[in-house]
Structures are given as C-alpha cells and as structure tokens.
C-alpha cells in the first residue's frame, strides 16, 4: 500500500492524538486528522470506527478526553458548537439535528434568526418572510422542491430532511463543512446535487470533510482519503494515487498490520 503521508504543514484544522471514551468503549484512541484548505477530505472507516465522534469533537458538540486541536496552526479549545461556528465550521450531523416541529426555513435559521429592522428587532421580533425567501433559494439550489415551505420538517421525507440539513450547513459555513453521511437517504439525482454542491464549496476555497460508506462516491469527489479504524487513523491517501482495494484493506485491517 502507499505509505501514509507525514503530518501536514498548512492544515486549516487538525487533531493530534485525540482521545474519547464512553464508559468502557474507547471511541477514539489517539486519533490524528487534518483538514486542508480548499480540499475535499473523505473520512472512511467501518461502523463504530469513531468517525462521527471525531466530527462531533471538531464541531464542539462533544468534548475530548485528551489530545490537541489546532486551528490555523494555533491550539484551540472548542467548548461548544458556537466556538466552532465562530471559526467558520458547520456540520451536517449523521442524525441531522433538525427540530422536527419547525418548518424548513426555521431550521435553516435555527440559532441565527433574522431579526426585523428597527424597534421590533430590538424587541426580538423575527422576520419570517425574509427567512423563508432566503431558505427557498438555498433549497432550490440543491434541487429540492419543497412543495410546502410551511410543513414541519417531521412531515418531510428522509431525503428532503437530509437536504434541509445539508443546505443549512452549506449556507453558513465559511471555512470548513463536515458532512456525516450526507447522501445516505438521497436518491440518485439528489445525491448528485450534493456532490455538485461539494464541488462548488471546494471551488470557493472552503474545505469539505465527507464521511461516507459509499467508496465509489468517495473516489468520485475526494482529494484525500483518511482511514479510521478502531479509533485510530491508520492511513492517509491521495485519492488519485490509491485503489479501492487498498482503502478497503486499511479499513478492515487486512493490509498494513499483516
């Protein structure tokens, strides 16, 4: 197999020796990971390898037990999702993290509601019309046709909900966007739209981290592939220099340790 690349210079966001245990389960056992500017990085690994845990740590949702996180080379502590947001990091969570009783626009603007101008704004009045108009634009870009923008998200299909979550992250990310299996529930056309979106995001100089079990998709879009196994990163490949067999070998442990 190709040798793992050395630790990188010029990484935008990196994890060094990050650890996280849930009771007896050691979800992450000294994991390294890096996100480079303007690249699409695929994070692959078997079920339970620790991918989602790593993403949650880097988006401030879960606190690590140990290790270091650096942003633009400086050590940082991401105490909360707000800290990650301030760094320009947005996440599409595997469980989507949507408020099912609110409509798509409300979800898109959750936690950053558009406030009405003037006195009403000072009193905390929200501008539902403006939010709805901007949300409709975002959704159209992703090619979902939400016939009823007033329907609560819980009424939407699984794929439509996933697209709402993807639009939300894409709307707000300015530096990095994590996507934890963003196409798992999507039809062929919608999945293709998400891949298009990822390309466009990369084109605008932002970084994308894509978690996916769909290796053909990964090879279609990723610049770099990082493999997680049993809570450790076991390999980093450039996507154009590696075969699918090698990646699978690293994921399952068939290669390398043998």
């Amino acid at each position, binding site marked *: 197999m190709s040798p793992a690349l050395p630790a990188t210079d010029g990484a935008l966001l990196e994890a060094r020796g990050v650890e996280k245990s849930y009771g007896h389960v050691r979800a992450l056992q000294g994991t390294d990971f890096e996100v480079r500017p303007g690249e699409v990085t695929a994070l692959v690994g078997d079920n339970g390898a620790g991918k989602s845990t790593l993403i949650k740590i880097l988006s401030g949702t879960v606190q690590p037990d140990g290790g270091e996180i650096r942003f633009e080379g400086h050590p940082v502590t991401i105490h909360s*999702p707000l800290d990650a947001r301030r760094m320009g990091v947005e996440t599409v969570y595997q469980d989507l993290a949507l*408020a099912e009783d*609110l409509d798509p626009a409300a979800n898109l603007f*959750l936690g950053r509601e558009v406030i009405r101008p003037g006195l009403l704004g000072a009193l*905390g009045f929200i501008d539902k019309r403006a939010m709805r*108009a901007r949300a409709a634009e975002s959704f159209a870009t*992703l090619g979902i046709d939400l*016939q*009823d923008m*007033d329907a609560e998200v819980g009424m939407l299909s699984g794929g439509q909900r996933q697209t709402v979550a993807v639009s939300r992250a894409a709307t707000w990310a300015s530096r990095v966007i994590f996507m934890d299996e963003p196409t798992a529930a999507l039809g062929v056309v919608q999945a293709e739209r998400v891949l298009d979106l990822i390309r466009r995001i990369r084109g605008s100089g932002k970084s994308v981290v894509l978690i996916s079990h769909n290796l053909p998709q990964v090879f279609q879009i990723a610049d770099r592939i990082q493999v997680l196994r049993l809570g450790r990163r076991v390999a980093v490949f450039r996507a154009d220099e590696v075969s699918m067999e090698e990646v699978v070998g690293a994921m399952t442990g068939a290669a390398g340790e043998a």
Partner: protein
Amino acid sequence: MGRDGTPVGQAEQASVAGEEQEIRPRLWRLAAATSTWIFLVLVVIIAVFSIMNFEAFASVFNLRNIMIDASSLLIVAVAMTFVIITAGIDLSVGSVLVFSQVVAALLMRAMGAEGLGVILAGLAAATVSGLAWGVLNGVLIAKTRMPALIVTLGTLGMAQGAALLLSGGINVRRAVPAELVTTVGIGRLFGEIPYLVLIATGITILGGILLHLTRFGRHTYAIGSNPEAARRAGINVSRHLIKVYAMSGFLAGVAGYLLLARFTTTTIEGHGTTNLQAIAAVVIGGTSLFGGIGTVFGTVVGVFIPAILRNGFIILGVEPFWQQVAVGAVLILAVYVDQLKRRARERA
C-alpha cells in the same frame, strides 16, 4: 457553467409558484390544527347554552363573571403553555401563587395596608417571590437534568409548606389596601370592563406575541422539539429553560396578587388543583405534552371550555359534578387527537 445557471432559474420559478400556492396549505394547516377543532367545540358549547337559556347565560353580567373567574387561571396557563412547549411541566404554580400572596399580604399588612407605596411594595413582593421559585425550578431542571415533574412536585410541597409556615395556616386578612381592591380588584374601566379581565387579556396578548413572533418563542419551540439540535444550533438551552420556568413563577405571583386584590384576603386553601387546571387548559388547547407544538390561542380556548361548562351547567341546573366529567372527556379527546397526528407523522 450551464449547471450553475440552472439552480438560480429554479429558485425564481419556485418563489413565483410558492406565492400562488401559499394560501392553500395554510388553510389546510388551519383546518388540521387541534386548536381550530377545540375552538369549534367551544363555539358549540356556547351555542347550546345560549339556546337553552339565552337570558341567563348570554347576559353581559354572566359573561363578565365567567371572564373574571377565568382571569387568574388564564395568566398561569399562558406561562404553562411555554413550559409545556419545551416538553416540561410546572406542578408548582398553585403553591407558588399562594406563597406569593402570603408574602405580599404579610408585607402590606406590616406596612399599614394603605396607600400607593404599599400597593406597589405588595406587587413587588408577590412577583419577586414567584420569580424566585420559578428560577429555582428552572435552575434545578436545566442544570441537574432532573425531570421537571419531580422538581416542580418538590417545589410544590416546599412553597406550600413555606406559605403555611409564614401565615400560620390562617388566611392573611386586613392586609390589602382598599384602593387596590376598588380599582384592580373589583373596578371596571368605563364602568364596564373589569380591570382584572383587561390585565389578563393584556398578559395573554403579550404571551402570544412572545411565543409566535419573537426569537424567544422560536427557541422555545426548538428546545421542545429537539433539545440537542437546539444546543448544536448554538442556543443556550439551560438559560432558556430557566427563563421559561422563571416566567411561570413570575406570572403565578402576578395571578396571586390579582386574586389578593379581588378577594381582599389570601386564598391558601383554594389552589390545590390550579396546576392541574392550567395543564388541562393548555393540553385541551392543542399543546403537545411531548413539546414542540402549541399556541396561546389554543390555551385561551382551553381555559374557557371548563369555565363555560361549569357556568352553563349551574345555570341549567345540571349537577355541577358533570362539569368535571365533561372536562375530563374533552381533555382525553384533545390528547388523543395529538397522538393521532404524531402517529400520522411517524408514518410519513
């Protein structure tokens, strides 16, 4: 290249089509809302009572009394709407109401029971007492993650015990300034509209605005819908919950003070079921006990259905105990409708 053009074109089409289609789903949603149905139930009840005894039931005198009687429950129920939309519950409101009354009454009596200064001091005492219990509830629920049912059951007992300790178990009398009683207590604007009703209406409208038009309301729904999603969206869930329970305590204090003004004495024994009445009103009005769904309008309807049933039964000479039976049935019906809707959604 052409690909980048496509989404924009679609966005324009979507928004044009969206405006034409907007009306129809809204009507549907209105028709499907529990509060709409429950409002029709209220209209039917009023129609039936009016037909059976128009003179007695539909008189200004009678309707005014219904509204006066309902005003303090309405205030407590508006706050309870917020609490239940966060998927919480506040069992302590009745005891907190009584505690606030006792503190305010003792203070006003000690100050001489007359004059504007005393009136304002009493108001401050009642609202601050209520607020303090509410904050305690909120902090315990938000920070320790104990179930709201247990926390507020605990503070229910504590507030009630404290009120009895302070008052010696006897209602505090000769404490309420006459000026307060004749204005807020039993006075009427232009000789027609009782101030109690005006105050309750004002609080209800403010509550409705807060819930439906502001960021605070939006976050209330989000937290009840999916607290983890709210947290990940950067909402300070603990702080928001504390505010919601604080509001519940505060308004219980306000309601206690208004009752003090109306009856000129504390009502220590009168609030054993205020919590359940408020919860029933909120739930009858279509607010979901699972959180995330509800309206202030529904709560208003939910307050008036039991109130009008009781009044109508009395006028018609039906055993008033039937009111409890009827309200219980309406309550179960409302929860059943909520359940059906949730199941329909899970299938979707």
